[in-house]
């Protein structure tokens, strides 16, 4: 009997020794797999899964990724977050959209669990929370970068803006865009709004058209954008449409007539036609597994997973590190000046606010696919 116990103990020791060399990281996040924002949620889930599978396949360590559905709803997100804690995750890659991220990040700050959101772009998500970091641009940055991009690339500066004033994301981008646009001397001829329940955009489109706007800035999600494009087409109004990352996903809407989006510009750190090896490999894997061209959200999640893994290695986190200890170590790594992640969305560094710094690119929709703006002309 004693022998068996000793043997078992030895075995257990050997196993735990082995575990010390090959770590298993438990990473979880909430993401809208169903609901109106499912296009983003599914993309994030797929991108994160590909990265986790790649890291695991590399043989050194294992990543167990759990993505739970939050339906783009704060309350459901909190429930999903609690389920993740019960499953003993060590760090979070999520949430995907801003509203659930605001709820989850407040809770994660209380609980001291490290949170890296691939795509929630409001500054409110990271503000005052030392343990919350972003992979995507913040809303103010998107607004600023859009205005600068328009000015730098000789796009029309007689501008109309249509934004959703019931949405923090849309309003945030609008405000910084407008401020920067005024500074750059743009002629803003029409500013109109809508809310989540709006189905008819004819007034907004007509206002832009009647005021002679040559470029319409749409800091909004793709569902209303698809209707705006249709109604502008019906009104025979064809300005340059300039969107932000929320526009990403418009081409994957079932039944969407891609010709309506021809020539639409959007600002994104990722374009699937980039020629570097890693992007091409990611795009090929994504296409093979999910039969779709990955959007920016998938790329942000993919980079986020690698960033977490790289930071976990630097911080010396093991399979047994509890989440609160991991949190402090990860914060130290992310804010250190020599922590640089080379991702497919650019070279990323982080400041103490949790905001990322990387360079945006613009893509233009041509024949139903994204083409890098610099490749398009």
């Amino acid at each position, binding site marked *: 009997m004693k022998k068996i116990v000793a043997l078992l103990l030895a075995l257990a020791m050997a196993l735990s020794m082995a575990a010390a060399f090959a770590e298993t990281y438990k990473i979880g996040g909430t993401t809208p797999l*169903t609901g109106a924002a499912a296009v983003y949620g599914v993309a994030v889930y797929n991108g994160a899964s590909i990265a986790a599978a790649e890291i695991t396949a590399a043989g050194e360590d294992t990543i167990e990724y759990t993505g739970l559905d939050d339906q783009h709803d704060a309350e459901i997100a909190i429930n999903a977050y609690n389920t993740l804690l019960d499953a003993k995750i060590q760090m979070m890659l999520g949430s995907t959209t801003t509203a659930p991220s605001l709820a989850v990040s407040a809770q994660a700050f209380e609980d001291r669990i490290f949170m890296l959101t691939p795509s929630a772009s409001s500054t409110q998500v990271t503000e005052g929370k030392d343990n919350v970091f972003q992979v995507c641009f913040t809303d103010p940055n998107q607004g600023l970068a859009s205005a600068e991009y328009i000015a730098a690339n000789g796009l029309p500066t007689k501008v109309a803006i249509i934004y959703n004033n019931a949405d923090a994301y849309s309003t945030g981008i609008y405000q910084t865009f407008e401020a920067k646009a005024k500074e750059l001397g743009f002629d803003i001829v029409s500013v*109109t709004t809508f*809310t989540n329940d709006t189905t008819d955009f004819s007034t907004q489109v007509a206002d832009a058209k009647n005021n002679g706007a040559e470029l319409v800035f749409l800091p909004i999600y793709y569902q209303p954008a698809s209707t705006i494009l249709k109604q502008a087409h019906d009104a025979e109004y064809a300005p340059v449409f300039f969107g932000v990352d929320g526009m990403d996903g418009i081409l994957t809407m079932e039944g969407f007539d891609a010709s309506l989006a021809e020539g639409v510009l959007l600002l994104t750190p990722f374009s699937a036609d980039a020629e570097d090896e890693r992007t091409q490999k990611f795009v090929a894997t994504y296409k093979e597994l999910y039969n779709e061209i990955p959007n920016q959200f998938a790329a942000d999640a993919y980079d986020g997973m690698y960033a977490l893994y790289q930071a976990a290695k630097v911080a010396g986190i093991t399979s047994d590190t509890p989440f609160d200890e991991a949190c402090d170590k990860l914060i130290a790594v992310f804010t250190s000046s020599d922590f640089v992640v080379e991702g497919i969305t650019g070279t990323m560094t982080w400041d103490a606010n949790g905001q990322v710094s990387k360079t945006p690119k613009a893509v233009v929709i041509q024949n139903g696919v994204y083409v890098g703006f610099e490749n398009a002309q």
Partner: protein
Amino acid sequence: MMSFLSYLVNGISLGSVYAIIALGYTMVYGIAKMLNFAHGDVIMVGAYISFCATQYWGLSPLLSVVVAMLVCTCLGIVIERFAYKPLRQATSLAVLITAIGMSYLLQNAALLIFGANPKVFTSVVSIPSLSLFGGQLLISGEALVTIICNVVIMVGLTLFTAHTKTGKAMRVVSEDRGAAELMGINVNATISLTFAIGSALAAIAGVLMCSTYPTLMPTTGSMPGIKAFTAAVFGGIGSIPGALLGGLLLGVIEIFGRAYISTELGDALVFAVLIIVLLVRPTGLLGKPVREKV
């Protein structure tokens, strides 16, 4: 001036959609004396059926409308038979709650079957848009078809209720259900027929609405449904011309409000109108004042 006209056309087009939906509310209320809050969701079902018919089953757009009407008619009859008929003698509150429950049932069933990703509805209208005043005023094909359908349906329904035997039976049931039953009118069949007509109209409304505003989601019907209900109350619930008038006025008020007052206040104005109408004329513009018998 041209922009005023174009807003007016947009308003009439939006109002025509509201009017067709409002008809469903008003007919069911007039005859069964209940508010069928699931009506907005029948619109959504109609739009989904038409979407599936064109996208998956390869039917022509016109045929897809017919299929959507058939499915919605059956759905309307089934809803009435299983959810509302057993409650015919119950309090109106119980029926109202059942209707709200039915609305959620339909929404969530659509969520299960079609998923939450919005689908983009391909317009069933192939008429080119009409260009007036040298291209200054554009009326889209969808708007034309919506307005024409609206007029045709209104005239058709008015003739139907005024001159056919079944139509007259409907009016009798709406005036006095007990007396109608004593006169040998099959009240249950009449109510079923009302639901069938209302739901078929809902299918048409769904297809027309999604042709103009192409995003199709399980919640697509709820907001237009509520606005159409407002239109029905505005025009006088129970009155067919009232639904037309209420719908058109509401659409025009909404668009003008957005255009000339504030884009943010479009919806607020619509519901402010409802409150004012209820305060000033509780029976609506064309509603008959009912004297309470003591």
